Every structure is written in C-alpha cells, then in structure tokens.
C-alpha cells in the first residue's frame, strides 16, 4: 500500500508507533503465509513474530523497490524455508499414523470425505513438496501472486517459477489422487 512508505519513513525517523502500525497491518497475512508453509500454529506465530523482529532490525535494507509486504514476505519465506529444513523429520513423524482413505463410490467423493481426514491429506500433500516448490505453490495459489512477482521475491526467473509451480501441482495431484477418485 502507498502509505506503507509513509510508516516506514516515520519509523526510520524514530517513530516507534509507526512500526506498530505496520505490524497491525500485516500480522495476519504474514501469519497465514507462514502457516501454509510450516503447517503448525505455534511455529507459525513464532516465525511471524520473528519476521517483524527481523524487519525491525533490517529496516534500513528496505529500499522501497518492492512493496513493503513483498519485502516482509521474503523475510517470512526465508525464515519458513530454514524452519522447514530444520524440522523435516518432525514433519513426517507427525503424519506417520495418518490412515489411508477408505474407498467409496457413493455421491460426491470430496464431500463424502471426513473433513479432518481431508485436511490431514492436504497437509501431508503440501508437506511432501520440496520446500522451494512449496513456497512457489503457496505464493501462487493461495497468495495469488503473479509469476513475475514471485520471481522477483525469490530472485529467480519467471521460467523457473512456472516450472516449479507446474511440478508442485503435478505432485499434489499425485498425492491427492486417491481423494480425487473418491477413494
């Protein structure tokens, strides 16, 4: 938003309340971006707070070339990717006991599934993505960012982003295939 720069400038000039304004504005979107990536509330809230701590300390490096939210997203993505890498084992352990869906051919398959079971399947499918594909998929599908914006955010080419998104969707399609068939 245009007045983000105003708050950033005020904060740089010593107005601490201006930074609070930026936190209030972006705490929810940042929390949800992170939550989609790390799939755990406690970790997401902690990482969202750390994102703002990092932004507070590194505000001088924000040049205003990208939007403030895009800049925050980049910090959030980096923190999340590091977190995911450090906790790979833990992620998979949490899904070890997830039951396979029971086959049924009645009615609309997705509606007939138990809500919780489907959510677990989605969690598992998203966690199964390599972290880079996961980031690209979440920014594109859930955050509805353009390929170009994601490319700028991650410092990659648009082609790389498109390829990553394609592979992520194919992998999710494969992971959720049983559910698609109404299994």
């Amino acid at each position, binding site marked *: 938003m245009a007045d983000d720069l105003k708050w950033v400038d005020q904060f740089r000039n010593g107005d601490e309340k201006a930074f*609070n304004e930026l*936190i*209030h504005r972006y*705490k*929810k979107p940042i*929390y*949800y971006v992170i*939550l*989609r990536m790390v799939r755990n*509330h406690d970790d997401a*809230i902690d990482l*969202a*707070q*750390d994102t*703002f*701590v*990092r932004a*507070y*300390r*590194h505000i*001088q*490096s924000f040049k205003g070339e990208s939007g403030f939210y895009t800049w925050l997203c*980049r*910090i959030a993505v*980096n*923190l999340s*990717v*590091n977190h995911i*890498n*450090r906790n790979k084992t833990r992620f998979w352990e949490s899904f070890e006991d997830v039951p396979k869906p029971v086959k049924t051919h009645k009615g609309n398959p*997705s509606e007939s599934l138990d809500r919780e079971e*489907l*959510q677990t*399947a*989605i969690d598992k499918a*998203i966690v199964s993505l390599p*972290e*880079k594909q996961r980031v690209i998929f979440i920014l594109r*599908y*859930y955050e509805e960012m353009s390929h170009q914006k994601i490319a700028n955010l*991650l*410092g*990659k080419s648009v082609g790389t982003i498109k390829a990553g*998104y*394609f592979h992520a*969707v194919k992998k*999710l*399609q494969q992971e*959720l*295939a049983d*559910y*698609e068939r109404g299994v």
Partner: protein
Amino acid sequence: MKKTHSEHLLIDYIEGELSASLKEEVDAHLGVCQQCRDELRSLKLTFSLLEKDALPELDSVEWANFVPHVRQKIESGGRFWDWSWLPRLAPVWASIGAALALFILSFYFRSGTPISSGEISWIFEESFTSMDAYEELAYMSYSDDEILLDFFDESEQEAILNSLESTLTFDDLADDLNQKKDAESVFNLNELEDVFIDMNLIIDQLDQMDEQRAEKFLLKLSESEIEII
C-alpha cells in the same frame, strides 16, 4: 497439440492465464483429446480439494498479544542476537572456517551501485560479524537449498561443498549433541538451530556494494572472524 504440450498449458488454462488465441487452440484440442479432458478434470479436482485447505482463525487474545510479543523480542535482543553460548561451540566455527575464505572470495570482485556507509555498518553490526555466513555455509552442507547455492557459480558451489564435506557439519554436531542428551547439549543444539538466520538480506547488500566498499566490508569480516576463532 501433443499431450506433453497441453499438460503444461492446462494449468494456465484453468487459471485463465492463456491468451485468447492459445485458449482457442487448447479448447479445440480438448474437443478431440479424451486424455487431456481427463487431465483437465483431474487438475480441477486437485484445485478444488486444495481450496478446502482451511486454516484456523486465531482468537482475539492471540492477535492482541502479537505486537507485545514482537516488542518483547525486539527489546530483549531476540534470540538471534544472544551469542553468549557461542564460545561453547568454538569447534564448529573453527571446523568450518575454511569455508569462510571461499565465501569471501565469492564476493570479493562483485561490484554494483554504491551504498551508504551507514548500511555497511548495519551489515557489519547486525549480521554480527561472520557468524551468519558460517552458519549458512554449514547449513548448505546438509541441505540442497538451491536458493542459497544459486548465489555461487558452479565451481564455487563445488569448492564450498567439497570443503565442507571434509569438516564437521551441522549434522555431525547435532548427532553428537543428541547422543550426549545432557542439559547443556540440548541447550546448545536448540540454540544452534535457532540462529540459522538466512543470509539473503546480507547478500542483497553485498550485491549492491562497489568493489571498494565490498573490500572494506570483507576486511572487517575477516578481522572479526580471527577474533572469534
């Protein structure tokens, strides 16, 4: 249209990203290709399932506590900046010290637009000397994180990884600490994990430095590295 061609296009087709002419082409192909119609149906089902990814709403108390918690972390110095435990991990820094030289070399001749001296100070102070570089390089040794490795060219990547293969890595240390299971080891492991802060912001700054400023920064970096080890 070949299947492989259409598979790539189908996602753009669903998302309405195709040009009018390309969309017409895909429509025409879908009219005659059962396989692609099946694929389209399957992709749409995948997206419809993913739309059901429901995230819990935080309650108002948690949101109300958010800013105070951020402020608390800022005021306490945050976990990123508590380095009091570092001396206990001295062997780690020493063992991956060789990688720092490669890191420095990789940036030594980079050039770009000048930045202010204040920003150099920021990099120097906020990155707390060379610790972040050490951690990230150690981190790369057990990760296939191309986001970080992409900053180096192929020969540099190879040199970094080769160098790290022969030294103690984070995994080695983590295994060692895990085996000990004493309170101090667990504390060290948790702290070590917590300070894997990313280097991208620092790299952004380095990319924008002219050669002279980069040299100055790297000189400070190397001096501080000697003090620490």
